[in-house]
């Protein structure tokens, strides 16, 4: 069923009783050409692009729980490509371009909203760094412009510009950045992949790998063994656990990141705005709630919830930038498990086991990368080699020293 305005109106007149399930619920087959482990945004996008770009349709996506139950449903929905490192800008810009055409491509309303991303700066050195990053973006053909205080104040009048400790002097603006409805990304990719013949198999946990002569030949799952000569892992925070089943040890630590949403209010914050004197980002959802978050808690964790010190820190930063936030009630907070890599950048690559591919290390920037991650991972799986977009994100860069360390903080995951 193709979704359209006529479709919506027609169904409305018939009492909305004839909608079809958006994807099938197939039993696993004995063998597939390729298996993707992990039914989150990246795994579903990978399956979709394998089918669309590379003609591989005999594919299964295996998900331990239900699709979209992990980080794709837990993030703060921000998309942007305002990076600085040469390996990162082209990759994230490719992702942003895919976001721009996504809804038409997958025939699903993902509510892509290019409302602009503002990175606020508070002093001269931050201003210089922001201008440099903007220039670096423009040299790569990405939009980025610096707004001085007067221009910023016109756009966002209600920030605390004269905060005694963190006065606001300007901001770097990426107009094409914005937000995307996160759950719809999982559902849209799932539906589009399913329509091309991909089997999405939920409640199916991978419990082992079958490896013969250094090549992967299948997986053991909670729903029985499944054979496949190509297997891609897109397991986010649980990557280390799943990869260990194949004997891999990875440069990853899993950390918890919290996010928050307030009660719904009238339109207040039109853009995505980040605080420069700490780590805080905020936007307003279409339901009216302010959605915001900060840094990871800073210690290894597989608990999908965090602790109070980070809650306090995030609220303090928010109120320092928008004092009016103090009058709002926070409705919910939650946590997701981040696969923090040792240089803060992702890994999309082959492994030493032939036929086993790896997509991990997204730190807490995985959502914006979803389309490009799936696109590049599909290319890597189909051709058994990296695309130039993900060539800098190799697994062996930690041995060779070609790190992509956006923040320049070294191999300390809780600082990225």
């Amino acid at each position, binding site marked *: 069923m193709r979704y359209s305005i006529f479709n919506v109106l027609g169904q409305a007149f018939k009492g909305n009783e004839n909608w079809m399930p958006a994807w099938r619920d197939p039993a696993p087959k004995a063998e597939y050409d390729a298996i993707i482990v992990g039914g989150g945004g990246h795994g579903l996008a990978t399956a979709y692009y394998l089918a669309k770009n590379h003609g591989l349709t005999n594919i299964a996506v295996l998900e331990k729980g239900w699709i979209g139950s992990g980080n794709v449903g837990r993030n703060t929905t921000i998309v942007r490509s305002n990076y600085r490192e040469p390996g990162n800008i082209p990759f994230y810009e490719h992702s942003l371009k895919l976001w721009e055409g996504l809804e038409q491509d997958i025939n699903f309303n993902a509510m892509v909203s290019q409302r602009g991303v503002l990175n606020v700066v508070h002093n001269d050195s931050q201003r210089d760094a922001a201008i440099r990053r903007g220039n670096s973006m423009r040299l790569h053909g990405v939009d980025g412009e610096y707004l001085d205080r007067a221009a910023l104040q016109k756009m966002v009048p209600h920030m605390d510009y004269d905060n005694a400790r963190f006065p606001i002097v300007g901001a770097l603006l990426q107009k094409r950045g914005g937000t995307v409805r996160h759950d719809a990304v999982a559902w849209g990719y799932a539906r589009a992949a399913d329509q091309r013949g991909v089997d999405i198999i939920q409640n199916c946990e991978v419990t082992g790998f079958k490896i013969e002569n250094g090549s992967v030949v299948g997986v053991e799952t909670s729903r029985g063994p499944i054979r496949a000569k190509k297997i891609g892992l897109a397991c986010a925070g649980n990557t*280390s*656990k799943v990869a*260990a089943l194949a004997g891999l*040890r*990875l*440069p*990853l*630590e*899993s950390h918890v990141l919290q996010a928050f949403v307030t009660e719904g209010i009238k339109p207040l914050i039109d853009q995505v705005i980040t605080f420069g004197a700490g780590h805080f980002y905020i936007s307003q959802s279409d339901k009216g709630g302010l959605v915001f978050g900060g840094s990871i808690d*800073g*210690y*290894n*964790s*597989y*608990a999908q919830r965090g*602790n109070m*010190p980070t809650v306090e820190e995030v609220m303090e930063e928010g109120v320092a930038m928008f004092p009016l936030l103090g009058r709002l009630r926070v409705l919910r907070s939650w946590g997701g498990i981040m696969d923090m890599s*040792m240089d803060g950048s992702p890994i999309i690559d082959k492994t030493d086991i032939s036929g086993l591919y790896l997509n991990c290390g997204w730190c807490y920037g995985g959502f914006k990368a979803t389309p490009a991650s799936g696109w590049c991972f599909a290319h890597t799986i189909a051709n058994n080699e990296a695309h130039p977009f993900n060539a800098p994100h190799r697994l062996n860069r*930690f*041995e060779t020293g070609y790190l992509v360390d956006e923040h320049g903080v070294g*191999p*300390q*995951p*809780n600082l990225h």
Partner: protein
Amino acid sequence: MRITCPHCGPRTSEEFAYLGDAAPVRPDGTGVENMKAWHEYVHIRANPHGEHRELWQHASGCRTWLVVTRNVTTHEILGVEVASDAKAR
């Protein structure tokens, strides 16, 4: 989370700085033959579910390095000892 420092008693986790897994051992020597060992030491982590032995420093207190055994799935603290004592064993 509350960590019981052997010197200062139970203190909030905000007072502590986190380094990471206590398992990696610093290799001897910086020669080419040790490159693999250094890579393992600097980058590779077991990153397990459940029990995890990790290095914390009581940075805003007595500044002692500690080995904290913590369940990373529940955040329960299972044991704390001074890092030099843990190493000596």
